[in-house]
């Protein structure tokens, strides 16, 4: 058995890493959106209503990942996980939960911000098609935020469904399980950075192009769905590996 303070150390460390890392991307993404919206306002001052609405909605979606990590951090701090019966298993999974949700929110934040910024540019160019552009932006951002949801689910699994350390566990088992949990957190955290940012880039380009060629909307959207779904596959591999590391070891 270990003392309560080790569990507290890992929980607080995980919470700090999670919120700190996740806030970086949310901040940059939202700043990109807002900057583009301001630039677009200069070009198309008449459309300020739709522009500001779309900017706010886009920023709210971009912030989802950071809110996820905030929730996990609050759970880590106030959720009562510092029962010493958890042992090293819980200590490792608390740290891994923070790492997973923090790193996992990085990519989706950048990506959603890029999509929102491009949508603002398009809105300035074609204020008439604001509904199509905003709808497409939301769909693309939802696709990008799926990766953040993967990270959230893995960190919730690490928080709630990892076993307590048995009384008479051998040293080898302890090391094995704890390291497997940290590996699961790293896998899904690092693995969702690329796909999240990539899908955001796809959605952004699609938005920009719908603003220029609104007639080709259906073809562009079909291509966007296909490209985004294929880009997501590596995040799915990371998710599968994380599930295996949590449940099959």
């Amino acid at each position, binding site marked *: 058995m270990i003392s309560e303070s080790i569990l507290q150390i890992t929980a607080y460390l995980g919470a700090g890493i999670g919120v700190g890392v996740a806030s970086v991307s949310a901040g940059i993404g939202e700043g990109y959106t807002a900057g583009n919206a301001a630039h677009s306002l200069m070009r198309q001052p008449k459309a300020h*209503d739709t522009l500001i609405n779309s900017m706010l909605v886009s920023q709210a979606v971009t912030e989802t990942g950071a809110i996820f990590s905030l929730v996990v951090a609050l759970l880590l701090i106030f959720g009562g996980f510092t029962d010493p019966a958890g042992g090293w298993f819980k200590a490792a999974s608390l740290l891994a939960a923070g790492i997973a949700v923090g790193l996992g929110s990085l990519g989706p934040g950048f990506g959603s911000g890029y999509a929102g910024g491009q949508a603002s540019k398009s809105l300035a160019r074609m204020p008439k098609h604001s509904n199509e552009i905003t709808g497409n932006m939301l769909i693309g951002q939802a696709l990008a935020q799926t990766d953040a949801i993967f990270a959230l689910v893995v960190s919730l699994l690490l928080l709630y469904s990892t076993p307590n350390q048995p009384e008479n566990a051998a040293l080898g088992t302890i090391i094995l399980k704890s390291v497997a949990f940290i590996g699961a957190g790293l896998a899904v955290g690092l693995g969702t950075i690329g796909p999240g940012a990539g899908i955001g880039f796809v959605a952004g380009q699609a938005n920009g192009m719908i603003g220029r060629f609104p007639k080709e909307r259906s073809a562009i959207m079909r291509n966007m769905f296909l490209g985004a779904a294929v880009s997501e*596959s590596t995040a799915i591999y990371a998710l*599968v590996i994380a599930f295996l590391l949590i449940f099959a070891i």
Partner: protein
Amino acid sequence: MAQKKGSLLRYLFLFLVIEVVLIVLSSGLNKQLQVGYDDTGKFVFQNVEKEYDLQDKIQEEFQPDEYAKQNGISPKFYGSSALYDFFAKIFGKANAISAFNLIRMLIIVDLVLLLVAFLIKKQLFEKPSKPQIIFEMIYTTFEDFVKDTLGKEKLHFTPYIVTLFIFIWTCNMIGLVPIPGFMEPTRNLNVPLGLGIMAVAVVHYMSIKTKGLGKYLKDFTQPLPPMTPINIVGEFSKVISISFRLFGNILGGAIIVLVVSSLVKFIILPVGLNLFFGIFVGTIQAFVFTMLALTYIGVEIAE
């Protein structure tokens, strides 16, 4: 329009507030409302104190054989027990439950598709019914894709492509039917792997048929002879990527729905999750699988 959007956002916000309040109120309680018959056959309507163990639940749902073996309970399955005994005798006891459930679901999907086909065929020569129009729309849409990708003279691929789409889509959707024991067959790796191997086999068959065996073998040494192993690995990676994408999306969606629903005490939020991960992701993945199979064929017979 702006008015409508604002009210929609307001409703969404209201739902979220209700959700959070309910979760906060219920988080301290470890109780569950139980309505129905208990084990002794008595009708009960009461709050039951219940220990809800997430890991236990996940194992019961996704690794039924392991769960039955570890807890020493009799296997839990849906359907006739004589059929299960017969099945366990043939395939062995080790993986009998999950295999039994999988094959049961596959047979149900097949029966549903056959029934729909029968009903539509019956009405084919009278005035067109609504389902018939929907299926014809799906067929013509995919016919256009085939025409774009493979050219006009390869239209005989359309039935295969449409079958692939409708089968995978039905597999992804049948997990949403609220009947005990219903699950997506695509959640098990064997089904997507089989479909993927079949799709790549069709690709290679078409490649040999159009190019001839000599050119087919020669293409593996393109652009340089030392690249041959990489080309061969690339063929295997086609199978892995196309099947793991479908499998991981459906399995991930199922686990996410289970985990988040149990954390929010099955209030409100699961509806949206099922909408997103069941209908939206299921449809997109079925479409992507079909389009990838089509594109692989198109690349091989392009010249």
